[in-house]
């Protein structure tokens, strides 16, 4: 292993306790994620998957070890990360368009340019919304949208400032199966057009197999990475892919890892 690495995100011997004297929430974890790589983390609930996201984005400091993003040690919240959760958390007093533009009001240098170049930014937001199938809904309020549409808008909000790092915490968990699979395609398309590094936390093994380049299986608490499985299924993956033998084999393999975790 060389001292200089080309990984975009690195976790070195990271351990996490929520507070001093607590039992470990995350057992010694090492991870390397390349720039533009799409990884998924699967595991039983309560295994610290979401904590992993908070560690990488700097919202929570590790108790031991260090986290390196873009060759810099993370010491506070990173300022460029896109995030989306199971709960779309759109602001109900803003239209869909204004919700998507929210990061532009915060991220530098956009926040200083937004007022003068409003039209340009709106155009950009409209384009992004159109690419996820939300054209014509820009001026609606979030509560006028269905759950799937809200989640699409939330995805747009997490990507509008073109972050290098996207954190997704079970973003499609609350959606019905058809909408969920539609959104897999949308996310895959966005990622293929402009590759950004994605960390997707999910408990849906098919979702992980459909989207990720590498799938990490975590143990139950204290969380620990048991398996890092590469997924070389060709892209773009589509509905047909999910019926092929390699895909189902992969899902079966992941399932058996999870079974071992639960029984251990």
């Amino acid at each position: 292993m060389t001292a200089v690495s080309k990984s975009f995100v690195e976790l070195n011997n990271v351990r996490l306790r929520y507070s001093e004297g607590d039992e470990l929430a995350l057992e010694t974890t090492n991870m390397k994620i390349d720039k533009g790589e799409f990884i998924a983390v699967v595991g039983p609930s309560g295994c610290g998957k979401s904590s992993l996201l908070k560690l990488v984005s700097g919202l929570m400091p590790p108790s031991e070890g260090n986290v390196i993003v873009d060759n810099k040690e993370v010491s506070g919240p990173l300022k460029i990360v896109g995030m989306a959760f199971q709960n779309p958390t759109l602001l109900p007093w803003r239209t869909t368009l204004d919700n998507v533009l929210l990061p532009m009001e915060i991220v530098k240098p956009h926040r200083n340019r937004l007022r003068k170049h409003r039209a340009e930014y709106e155009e950009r937001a409209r384009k992004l919304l159109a690419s996820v199938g939300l054209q014509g809904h820009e001026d609606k309020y979030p509560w006028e949208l269905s759950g799937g549409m809200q989640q699409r808008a939330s995805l747009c909000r997490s990507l509008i400032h073109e972050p290098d790092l996207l954190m997704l915490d079970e973003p499609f968990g609350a959606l019905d199966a058809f909408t969920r699979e539609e959104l897999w395609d949308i996310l895959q398309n966005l990622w293929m057009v402009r590759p950004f590094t994605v960390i997707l936390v999910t408990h849906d093994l098919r979702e992980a197999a459909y989207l990720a380049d590498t799938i990490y299986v975590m143990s139950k608490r204290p969380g620990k990475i048991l398996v890092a499985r590469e997924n070389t299924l060709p892209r773009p993956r589509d509905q047909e892919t999910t019926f092929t033998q390699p895909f189902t084999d992969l899902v079966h393999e992941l399932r058996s890892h999870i079974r071992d975790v639960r029984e251990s």
Partner: protein
Amino acid sequence: MKKKLNLSKAAPWLSAIGLFVLWELIVRIFNIPPYVLPTPSESIIVGWQFHEAIWMHAVHTLYTTLAGFAIAVVFGVVLGALVGSSRAIYDAANPLLVGFNSVPKVALVPVLVMWFGIGTVPAIITAFLISFFPIVVNVATGLATLEPELRDVLRSLGATRRDILVKVGFPRAMPYFFASLKVAITLAFVGSVISETVASNVGVGYLMLSASSKFNMPLVFAGLLVIAVMGIAMYEIFNVIERRSTKWANRGNQNI
């Protein structure tokens, strides 16, 4: 549909008229003497006889109440913002606020009179003291109940505390704020009238006190009715403002 709408519009008037009729009947049937409980009709007639005096006193009470209320809004918003945005300030201020709110404000009026003399100033201050608490609590609650995920989204974009407060905290606290205004304005009337009753020579509170010392119970009740009407009017005004400015928060109640 149209009939139903009319009925719901008429409902408050019907219930008010019903109460007056019931009151009138009870007094007449049980032959209650007017120095114990006057009939509403008598109160209204006497109120009309004294309408010039009542008008003068009512305007004064309204002015006092609104002045105290305005101070309460400014003070309540500032303190609520502080308490709601910092855990440490919340912990420090909370017991003091609760303790202060538990003190009956009527007990403070003599103190205020010692400091400011009899008249309008203690009434304004009492109105302020009694009405700021719900504003503080509601503004603080609105700010403190921000979803943790949303906070994470904003922080990972590099948002400062101030950004979060301005972009999300305040807009989100607006429905709480307006709800508290409705409560606060009615409390402000309580405060100003209490103070006028104890230590003033002007205002509806003073009018009622002087009427009762002359055993003019119908006039006392006329004063009570005037206060109630002013309270309802102010409450409705803030109700309308609330619904106009925070439509998004009332989206579920459109057909009620």
